[in-house]
């Protein structure tokens, strides 16, 4: 304790210099904290968006079809049928699947009297809302009865509503024309905030049967969404469904499968990997500024040792052993970096709070990065204080006492 208060006393003698040396560490630690939290915030944002599409989700899509040696895009085939979906739901071989949502989707023009938009039409059953975590802002989702009766009803995503209707007008009960046929609007979903080519808000949902028979004249499915019983059985579920469909399609070799099964977890893992790399990269850039801060500390400590040569000589003459001198200077440099670390953590948290406030991303501070910042700042004190401390301890008392 005494040696610490003595070091603090020494450091307060030259406040400006102490402050500037500390500033390097403040900036270093601060930027590490801020940038890591920024990276983690974006990771969480992407993760929660993917998870909002459904949890424990498997998607079966037909493979692209070979026509005269040209392989079509995945999902373009017509090999998946309603019978496949029924089989997955009812087969005794399938033990790990909870829910099955057969889907038919295609793009087409949707119009009202005045406005029109090109959007994605999805033919679905009520299970869809369950599996894909669709929640309603107004009205209801597609019902079982509407699927059975091939009803001409539609549920709109919020983007479609903005594109077709004026603000303040409730579209519920109004009509839209899809491929020239009139549909009554029965519900509007809440926004999922998706962007880009897979915008979850720019969709019109209609009963599966209506989409197949009335709109597009098809009897296959474009995808089957499956919910596994838990996250642990995703691979089992993938295998069970895969073998069932292979058997149903009379295929022996999995390599010839005319369908593919996507695992939500795979996508999540890929995204995690990408954002993890991104975070590491940011932290690496920040670590460089921390290194520069550390070199600043070493520089100051070397100046201090030279300045205090006589003092060191006196201390050695009065019986200070090498260890004592080393400890004294190490503690001074550790206090410098530790103080810098604590202030830096504060600055970093404040900076990341500002950034997340501006960018509307979640505010994430991991206790790990704070703990790490503490250890790193103390470590820098030892690392960059070691050489100056050694230099001080190895001074010969006679030389040091003569130093002017």
């Amino acid at each position: 304790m005494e040696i610490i208060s003595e070091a603090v006393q020494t450091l307060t003698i030259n406040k400006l210099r102490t402050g500037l040396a500390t500033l390097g560490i403040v900036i270093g630690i601060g930027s590490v904290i801020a940038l890591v939290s920024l990276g983690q915030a974006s990771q969480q944002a992407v993760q929660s968006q993917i998870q909002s599409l459904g949890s424990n989700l498997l998607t079966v899509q037909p493979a692209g079809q070979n026509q005269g040696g040209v392989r079509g895009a995945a999902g373009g085939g017509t090999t998946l049928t309603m019978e496949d979906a029924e089989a997955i739901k009812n087969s005794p071989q399938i033990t790990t699947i909870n829910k099955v949502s057969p889907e038919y989707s295609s793009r087409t023009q949707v119009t009202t009297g005045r406005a029109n938009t090109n959007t994605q039409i999805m033919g679905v059953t009520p299970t869809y809302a369950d599996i894909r975590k669709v929640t309603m802002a107004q009205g209801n989702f597609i019902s079982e009865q509407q699927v059975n009766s091939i009803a001409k009803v539609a549920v709109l995503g919020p983007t479609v509503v903005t594109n077709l209707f004026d603000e303040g007008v409730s579209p519920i009960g109004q009509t839209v024309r899809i491929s020239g046929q009139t549909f009554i609007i029965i519900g509007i979903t809440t926004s999922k905030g998706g962007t880009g080519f897979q915008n979850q808000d720019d969709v019109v949902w209609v009963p599966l049967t209506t989409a197949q028979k009335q709109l597009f004249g098809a009897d296959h499915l474009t995808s089957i969404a499956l919910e596994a019983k838990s996250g642990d059985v995703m691979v089992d579920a993938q295998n069970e469904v895969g073998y069932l469909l292979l058997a149903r399609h009379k295929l022996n070799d999995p390599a010839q499968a005319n369908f593919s099964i996507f695992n939500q977890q795979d996508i999540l893992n890929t995204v995690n990997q990408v954002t993890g790399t991104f975070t590491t990269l940011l932290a690496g850039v920040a670590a460089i500024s921390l290194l520069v801060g550390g070199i600043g500390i070493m520089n100051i400590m070397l100046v201090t040792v030279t300045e205090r040569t006589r003092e060191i000589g006196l201390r050695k003459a009065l019986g200070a052993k090498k260890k004592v001198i080393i400890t004294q200077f190490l503690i001074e440099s550790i206090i410098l970096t530790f103080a810098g670390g604590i202030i830096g953590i504060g600055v970093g948290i404040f900076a990341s709070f500002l950034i997340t406030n501006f960018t509307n991303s979640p505010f994430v501070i991991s206790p790990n990065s704070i703990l790490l910042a503490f250890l790193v700042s103390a470590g820098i004190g030892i690392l960059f204080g070691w050489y100056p401390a050694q230099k001080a301890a190895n001074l010969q008392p006679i030389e040091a006492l003569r130093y002017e």
Partner: protein
Amino acid sequence: MYAIIQATHLSKVYRTGAVETVALADVSFEINKGEFVAIMGPSGSGKSTLMHILGALDTPTNGEYVLDGQSVSKLNDDELAEIRNKKIGFVFQSFNLLPRRTALQNVMLPMTYADIPKEGRLEKAKKYLKMVGLEDRMEHTSNQLSGGQQQRVAIARGLAMNPAILLADEPTGNIASVQAEEIMAIFQNLNEEGHTIVMITHELDIAKHAKRIIHIKDGKVVGDGNGHKRRKVKK
């Protein structure tokens, strides 16, 4: 009498490249407990080198130095530090107090290196500051004290570990003459109380306060006697 310092055939040779400089050549003497000895000599005589060896700040090239029953000639840095801490009280020409620290803190410094608990340190420091007449200056920092007062703090610091010898290097060199007399009076009092004092100086006026004067010239002892009637050493 107990010989607290036994210097036997001490020599010190400095090598700078191929050039050898002999600073001390075969110096032998003994100092008994309770003596007040001045080591005198002109600059370049080797008295500073002798002081460094006697102060365990340096080791001799040859010869044997026994301080208070312990051989000091062949110790390493940390062992020398311990000897300096426990057995030697230094009083330097330029005082060498820690700046911006109080008189008390300065006197306590050697005791911190001996791991004496804080209460004991404070008590002793007060006692020795009182002994050198600074009881009303204990909380003054060194830059608030005059040269003579600073040197008295340094003496109190030298006494703090109750050392075998008090080693003073030109203790009055940076002090006005009136205050120098006070410092010498303190040394004489301390000597009467039984402290062994070795003082290096080039001023005869100062050396005369000691009971015995050892003269050094060209790295050799050329005279050893009491303050007033010195006698030549027979070769």
